[in-house]
């Protein structure tokens, strides 16, 4: 019993020592809390906000593209194959390569190519979920809508899209997590955001900086994921109640 209790105290000290070695910060430990406190509002918060901004803009634009394209693909089925092939190809390009290609295509370093890359990465997931969502609308629901005299437009906006919405939001959930991750790397070509803290920290061999960037990016991804789960439920009260009932 005694030895077990003694052991329980040991690991934290050992871990700390290891981390100190690893961080090469002889006396200050892995994280320099003092520096973090002094520079939080000046460096960290703006980086976080810029990261959110970058991802939000990219996702919004991607959605504006994906919804109409998805609707077209659902209507004209032959479009779906080529669309999936193209967006699927974009999705497989490694992020560093993607940024390099964009620069090679003549984009100057900065926010622009970063946002474009993020949009390109989101398209596959978003378009696929728009199509899946529309496909999931029961044929008889659409038939009844048409039979009651709804116009095509009213059917799309009032029946098909609302019913597809939970699936579309589920796609956004996956896309947002992807985009938050990729955006970190976007700092490499001047996209800014949390990636800047990471790259800066690595350059300056200053763990406080890159760990802060990495941790915040992770937390941001988790927060965004939770937010979209909530939204998904909020947008489909009918299915939520059914789940509760069943």
């Amino acid at each position: 019993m005694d030895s077990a209790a003694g052991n329980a105290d040991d690991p934290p000290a050992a871990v700390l020592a290891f981390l100190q070695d690893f961080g090469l910060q002889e006396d200050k430990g892995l994280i320099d809390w003092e520096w973090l406190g002094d520079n939080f509002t000046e460096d960290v918060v703006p980086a976080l906000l810029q990261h959110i901004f970058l991802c939000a803009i990219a996702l919004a634009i991607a959605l504006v593209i994906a919804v109409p394209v998805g609707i077209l693909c659902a209507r004209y089925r032959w479009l779906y194959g080529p669309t999936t092939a193209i967006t699927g190809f974009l999705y497989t390009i490694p992020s560093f390569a993607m940024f390099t290609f964009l620069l090679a295509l003549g984009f100057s370093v900065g926010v622009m190519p970063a946002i474009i890359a993020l949009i390109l990465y989101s398209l596959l997931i978003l378009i696929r979920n728009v199509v899946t969502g529309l496909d999931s609308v029961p044929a008889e629901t659409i038939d009844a809508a048409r039979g009651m005299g709804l116009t095509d437009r009213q059917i799309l906006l009032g029946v098909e899209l609302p019913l597809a919405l939970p699936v579309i939001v589920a796609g956004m959930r996956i896309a947002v997590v992807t985009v938050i991750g990729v955006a970190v790397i976007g700092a490499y070509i001047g996209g800014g955001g949390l990636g800047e803290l990471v790259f800066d920290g690595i350059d300056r061999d200053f763990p406080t900086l890159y760990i802060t960037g990495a941790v915040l990016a992770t937390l941001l991804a988790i927060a965004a994921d939770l937010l979209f789960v909530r939204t998904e439920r909020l947008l489909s009260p009918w299915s939520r109640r059914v789940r509760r009932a069943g």
Partner: protein
Amino acid sequence: MIEFKNVSKTYAGSNVTVVNDLTFEIPDGDICVLVGPSGCGKTTSMRMVNRLIEPTKGEILIDGQKNTSMSGTQLRRKIGYAIQQTGLFPHRTIADNIGTVPGLLGWDKDRIKSRADELLDLVGLPPNQYRDRYPAELSGGQQQRVGVARALAADPPIMLMDEPFGAVDPITRDRLQNEFLRIQEDIKKTIVFVTHDIDEAIKMGDKIAILKEGGILAQYDTPENILVNPASDFVQSFVGGDRVLKRLSLTRVGDVDLEPANGSGENLPRINEGWTLRDALSEIIGAGADRGVVVTDGESNGGSRGTITLDSIRKISHGAETPRG
């Protein structure tokens, strides 16, 4: 009145005629049942009325006007539409579902709301309990009731119903049929009713159009006449070997001339005047008797209106008497 005039349909990309030169009229206030084996073109014929499908040849007149004289959506808002799978909007409450067409027609909110409540009452679903539910929170039979209520919402003169009571168990179906017939007595809609079930056709129809393979009209007549004089071997076999019994199920005990009750009739079976002759026959034979005491609806003891004999039922089944007086 709905008139089919030489209506034919061949689907694009196929050379099979699925509805072939259909000509018949449906008088105002009648239920016309389209019945026939699977794939004979019942649904196709029905859907040409509100132009969900356009005929290849011929035309359909509604009150003397071609149904192409207005846009398809305008036309459909004036024609009630109910289908087997109900097609209720899963994301809208029952009240909102019922309010769909009134909403399209621009009724104000209060009027739509009170109309939805009125219809829920009509189809036997207490509004307080059901108006705010979602379709998935209802049983299959309740959903079909709502489907019918939704079709009735804007009080259209014409209704199209494609196996509206198809997806429920026989007992519920029977109840829904009876309720609908009761409602129809008041609302007197002109109804095109599709079913593949000849018993449902006989029960629901004022007129029956029997279609055969290839969408050919095999016979168009009242249920009685189809049962007494089937026009062809096809009709005869489609109607089935129990034509006589089916005919008995068209007549209610209360509608035939009864014999005066003699004696107490204590050992005789009780026959409710609301029953069909078929039910009465079954009850009398089951009790080992040759007659039954007819009692007033809702009472099992006393209130005797007379007796009905096997003999009188036999006579009616041979068409010696014209019932339905």
